[in-house]
């Protein structure tokens, strides 16, 4: 590597290379110089070598070389530069400072003066071979703002030492803690201008400066574009340090700092104690250890603070320390900024602060109102106590200035904002509320109104609004423009008022160009003065019923016509012949009575107040008769009654409708109403009208000569239901009808036009029947609607006899149904029906009896043959004739001898007490009387055929028969035990209630040794069937009155049966009359004919 190549390659140290360490640069420089010296020495040993030139200010080059080996410290060198005026220097050192050479290549020879074997070294030098290494910069001042944790650095660029304008790069480093941790490295740009310039740099530390020392150093790099040599960074300046507060202990930082919400912040705590924990609210944060026991915590995205700030607490083993951070917002742009004036003396600007900053007290937002034309400003002073702060500022109106350009600036520790408004103050006038309202009379219809309005309004006109209120009238607004004054007093005239009327005046004002109305002033009431009444009173007249006296009525004048307080009235009645007057009738009196003759009079009424009299109101006294008049009815609309009539051209004056309560005697007058002559209807309304009250309306038409009654109408403004029920009585009652009669309801209680009656009736007793839901269409309630009002009675027919009925009567009007009135009525008993009900069955029974009798009589032979055939006489039996003699003559032969025995009897027992126990006919044995006890019926002579069987008691087994007969028990005592009944199947017990045995008189009885062996008798019953009547057994109908069949048939006649029937009770029951023969068919009676049941 030749020196030329070494020097010809200028070092171009860019800014990016500035970070190269100084040792490296030095090494490179040395390397270049060595190349240069190697070349200059010409490969000869003992010659000076390694010529190196640097410059710090481009004005002088500092060249040095390396002495040849063996050269002492005090060796002398002859240095010569060709092409220079002074070309050689004799130096006793190995470096020299030469003025900067002009561009070009110069040959430099360095030759040691003592010859110790060295030779001359020759070098070629140009600017390209020179390095530009500025001197290290010098820090003028390093200061710290602990409250903001900001370092402020000041240094001089020493531009005066540099001949040309050149760009400079500055590199600043910040080192923290004793360990010199690099926390900031920043590069700045500046320009050297040929003069010394102080440069400043500030840096805000994230860590409070109190908590750790911070050191700052800087270096520079001159980027001279005209310099062709190599440019290098200067060395670092000496470090300057801002140490933390060494004398502060146990303090947390930053203190009371205001930060934006959401920012990241580092808190530190300076202490010599061991910190155990650090927390904000509930959150503990990891400790970052600094020098010594100092610690720090990092908080990210801090949330908004409460009013007193967010507490940051550090805990040591001994105590609690902390600091407070206030996280809030910078001020919002003031919104709704508005500036106006009340009085053109002061401008009031109000605004809405917008989003709350969450910063209060000394950290709250301060506002400044700046007016750009005048350059004046006012500041908003913070009010500590009030919770609802009003944001407003007052700015004095400047003379001869109407246009204002306001800028409202909001400022707090976190920032500022502003809002502007441009106004013409004369157009932004919102006057104060007018005060001191005064009213003075001008005349009865006009007043002078004055008020006080503070302000300097001389330059503008005021638009004022007067509100005029009077009783029972809509409010009236009148606009008036007045010229502004400086004395604040204003006066206007208010006309078109009504005399003698109380008015309430209110005033509000604005500027003529209108911006805002002021508030309404307080109300000022004033009574205008009186004037002459404008009209005469409304007049009417009524004749007394005697036709001699006339009552004159008039209505008090309304306020708008009275025009003052009416003191009295004058009434005069004038005819063609005379005039009668009633003077000074005091005001409260509104009628007068005057006696008049039959002449026609014109009545005149005049009202008078303190100012004068009203025009007279006139009315004719004459009443034109109208024969064609009938009373009509009308119903009102609830608030009045509408009367209509046909147009009558004869009615030239007007119509008068008068009305009164219909219940009052005539003539009556409640009020009247006049309508125009050509009217055909009038709605009559009155506060006196009440619903449910009948009123009488009279329509009069006015002709020239007087009034004629045209219509007479009764009506209600509203119908109501009657308040009472009609009184009704029962006039007549029969078995099937009731005649009801009722009375009218008084008109006062009717409360409407009667439409009819509703009559309800139903069966019911007094205590049980309830006429509930009569209108709901109950089927058991009969309703009669009586719409014929002339009907006062009602016959209710088709009723049932001897039945209680509940009757209810109600009246109804157009207003509804009235209350009900009811009574209970019992119809009479129907005797004819009862008689008929008795007679018809009797007649039928008789008829049946007769027919039966006739039939029996006619068929008596058949009956005889059938039921009573002739019984053959055993005596005529030839078979027995041979024994006749024996029977008659010898008592020894006793085969057919009838031994006297205990009489047998058949007894019918019934448990029902209603029916007397029927004792059957006692059949007496021709031999002996039977003992009542069966055991006693044992024959005395065992040889004789016993005719006294043991008593056999049977219960009727047929349930049907039992039911029909109640609990009847029939006890049959066999005539003779030997007479066994004909065999009957077991399955037919019901058909054989008496099958246990019966009288069988003609049975041939076998001779048995023991009559009591019933079993033997049963066993022989079939074969021992004895005598049977001469009739087929099938022809027999075993029917007894107790049998179901008998019951069902209901005919006792058919149960008579044969007198020899073993089942016939009829023939077994003896007649009551013991004298009557048993065959008379006892047991049948007429009464039985009517019995529906056999056992009844």
């Amino acid at each position: 590597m030749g020196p030329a190549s070494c020097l010809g390659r200028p070092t171009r140290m860019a800014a990016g290379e500035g970070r190269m360490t100084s040792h490296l640069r030095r090494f490179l420089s040395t390397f270049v110089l060595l190349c240069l010296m190697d070349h200059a020495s010409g490969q000869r040993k003992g010659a000076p070598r390694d010529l190196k030139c640097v410059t710090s200010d481009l004005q002088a080059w500092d060249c040095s070389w390396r002495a040849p080996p063996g050269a002492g410290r005090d060796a002398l060198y002859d240095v010569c530069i060709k092409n220079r005026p002074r070309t050689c220097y004799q130096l006793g050192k190995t470096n020299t400072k030469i003025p900067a050479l002009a561009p070009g290549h110069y040959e430099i020879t360095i030759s040691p003066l003592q010859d110790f074997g060295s030779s001359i070294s020759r070098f070629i030098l140009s600017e390209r071979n020179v390095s530009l290494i500025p001197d290290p910069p010098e820090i003028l001042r390093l200061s710290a703002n602990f409250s903001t944790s900001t370092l402020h650095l000041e240094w001089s660029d020493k531009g005066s030492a540099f001949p040309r304008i050149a760009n400079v790069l500055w590199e600043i480093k910040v080192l923290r803690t004793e360990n010199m941790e690099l926390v900031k490295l920043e590069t700045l740009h500046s320009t050297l201008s040929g003069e010394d310039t102080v440069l400043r740099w500030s840096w805000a530390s994230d860590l409070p400066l109190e908590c750790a020392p911070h050191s700052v150093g800087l270096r520079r790099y001159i980027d001279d574009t005209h310099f062709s040599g190599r440019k290098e960074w200067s060395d670092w300046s000496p470090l300057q340090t801002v140490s933390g507060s060494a004398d502060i202990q146990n303090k947390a930082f930053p203190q009371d700092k205001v930060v934006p919400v959401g920012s990241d912040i580092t808190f530190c705590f300076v202490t010599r104690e061991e910190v155990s924990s650090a927390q904000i609210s509930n959150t503990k944060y990891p400790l970052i250890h600094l020098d010594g026991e100092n610690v720090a915590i990092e908080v990210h995205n801090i949330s908004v603070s409460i009013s007193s700030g967010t507490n940051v607490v550090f805990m040591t083993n001994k105590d609690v320390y902390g600091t407070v951070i206030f996280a809030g917002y910078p001020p919002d742009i003031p919104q709704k900024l508005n500036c106006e004036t009340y009085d053109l003396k002061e401008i009031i600007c109000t605004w809405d602060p917008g989003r709350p900053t969450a910063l209060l007290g000394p950290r709250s937002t301060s506002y400044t109102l700046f007016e750009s034309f005048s350059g004046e400003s006012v500041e908003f002073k913070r009010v500590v106590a009030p919770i609802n702060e009003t944001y407003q500022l007052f700015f004095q109106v400047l003379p001869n200035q109407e246009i204002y350009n306001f800028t409202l600036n909001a400022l707090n520790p976190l920032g500022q904002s502003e809002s502007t408004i441009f106004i013409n103050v004369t157009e932004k006038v919102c006057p104060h509320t007018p005060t001191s309202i005064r009213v003075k009379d001008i005349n009865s219809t006009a007043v002078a109104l004055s008020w006080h309005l503070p302000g300097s309004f001389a330059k503008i006109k005021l638009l004022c609004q007067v509100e005029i209120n009077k009783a029972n009238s809509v409010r009236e607004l009148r606009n008036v423009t007045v010229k502004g004054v400086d004395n604040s007093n204003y006066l206007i005239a208010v006309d078109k008022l009504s005399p003698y009327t109380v008015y309430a005046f209110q005033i509000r004002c604005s500027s003529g160009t209108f911006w805002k109305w002021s508030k309404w002033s307080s109300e000022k009431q004033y009574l205008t003065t009186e004037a002459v009444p404008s009209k005469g009173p409304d007049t009417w007249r009524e004749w007394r019923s005697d036709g001699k006296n006339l009552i004159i009525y008039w209505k008090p004048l309304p306020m708008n016509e009275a025009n003052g307080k009416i003191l009295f009235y004058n009434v005069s009645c004038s005819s063609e012949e005379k005039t009668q007057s009633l003077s000074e009738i005091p005001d409260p009196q509104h009628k007068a009575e005057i006696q008049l003759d039959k002449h026609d009079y014109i009545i005149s009424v005049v009202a008078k107040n303190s100012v004068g009299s009203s025009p007279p109101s006139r009315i004719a006294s004459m009443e034109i008769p109208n024969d064609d008049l009938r009373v009509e009815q009308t119903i009102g609309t609830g608030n009045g009654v509408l009367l209509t009539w046909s147009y009558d051209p004869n009615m030239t004056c007007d119509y008068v409708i008068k009305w009164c309560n219909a219940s009052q005697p005539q003539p009556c007058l409640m009020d009247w109403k006049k309508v125009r002559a050509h009217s055909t209807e009038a709605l009559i309304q009155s506060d006196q009208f009440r619903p449910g009250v009948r009123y009488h309306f009279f329509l009069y038409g006015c002709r020239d000569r007087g009034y004629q009654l045209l219509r007479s109408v009764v009506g209600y403004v509203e119908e109501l239901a009657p308040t009472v029920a009609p009184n009704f009585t029962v006039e007549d009652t029969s078995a099937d009808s009731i005649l009801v009669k009722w009375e009218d309801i008084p008109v006062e209680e009717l409360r409407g036009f009667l439409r009819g009656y509703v009559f309800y009736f139903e069966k019911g007793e007094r205590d049980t029947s309830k006429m509930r839901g009569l209108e709901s269409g109950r089927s058991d309630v009969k309703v009669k609607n009586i719409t014929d009002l002339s009907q006062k009675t009602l016959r209710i027919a088709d009723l049932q006899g001897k039945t209680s009925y509940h009757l209810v009567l109600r009246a109804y009007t157009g207003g509804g149904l009235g209350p009900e009135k009811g009574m209970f009525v019992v119809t009479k008993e129907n005797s004819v029906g009862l008689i008929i009900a008795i007679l018809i069955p009797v007649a039928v029974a008789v008829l049946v009896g007769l027919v039966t009798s006739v039939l029996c009589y006619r068929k008596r032979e058949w009956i005889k043959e059938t039921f009573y055939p002739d019984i053959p006489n055993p005596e005529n039996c030839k078979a027995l004739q041979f024994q006749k003699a024996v029977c008659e003559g010898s008592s020894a032969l006793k085969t057919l001898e009838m031994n006297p025995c205990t009489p047998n009897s058949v007894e019918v027992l019934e448990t029902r007490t209603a029916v007397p126990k029927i004792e059957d006919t006692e059949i007496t044995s021709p031999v002996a009387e039977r003992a009542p006890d069966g055991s006693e019926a044992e024959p005395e002579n065992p040889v004789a055929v016993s005719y006294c069987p043991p008593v056999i008691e049977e219960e009727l087994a047929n349930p049907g028969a039992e039911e029909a007969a109640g609990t009847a028990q029939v006890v049959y005592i066999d005539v003779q035990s030997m007479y066994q009944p004909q065999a009957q199947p077991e399955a037919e017990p019901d058909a054989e209630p008496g099958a246990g045995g019966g009288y069988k008189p003609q049975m041939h009885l076998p001779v048995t040794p023991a009559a009591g062996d019933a079993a033997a008798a049963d066993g022989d019953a079939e074969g021992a069937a004895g005598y049977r009547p001469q009739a087929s057994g099938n022809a027999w109908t075993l029917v007894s009155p107790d049998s179901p069949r008998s019951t069902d048939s209901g005919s006792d006649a058919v149960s008579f049966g044969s007198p020899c029937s073993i089942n016939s009770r009829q023939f077994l029951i003896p007649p009551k009359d013991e004298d009557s023969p048993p065959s008379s068919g006892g047991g049948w009676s007429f009464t039985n004919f009517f019995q529906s049941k056999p056992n009844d």
Partner: protein
Amino acid sequence: MFEDFQADSSISPLPLLEAKIHQTHSLARLLTKYAEQLFQEYVQLQGDPFGRPGFSPPRPPVAGLSAPGAGHAGLPLPERLRLDAGALAALPPLLDAVRRLQAELNPRTALLRRLEEAARRARALGAALEAVLAALGAEPREPRPEPAAAAAAAAAAAAAAAGAFPAKLLGLRVCGLYRDWVSRTEADLGQLVPGGPA
């Protein structure tokens, strides 16, 4: 105890003194309730961890005023009352100082008014207690070497200079002292009230 005082007293008739003691005791009881309310409202407004039950920073004396000691109950009643009166005299300037500090931190709250009322009530109770002591013939309390107001102002200024957190701690301490001393005064006066604890 009341009898002891009465024996020593030749100033007030008994009914008047009794009424005065009753009145002062009632005032102390009322202020005890108010002081507790003030304390709770104060810690609520200071934010965490002031309102937390476990938060109990050291309680150094404030302007020479410390909390009633553990041996307070063992002292003779006149001595206790004198200590009470002294504390009540020292409290109003401290409460005023706290109010001024809180005006910077909680300017829009009712706490400021309550602190002002508390200072006024402490003065009233202190004056009433002094009157009772005088009526009982007790020796007046020793004059404080340093005016209470100046000491309080100095404490407040130091707290304010140290930052908001020390100011909050000072307020906490003062409100706690106010509560403790008013409560202590009520208890001590209760022993003078006939029928009260012996």
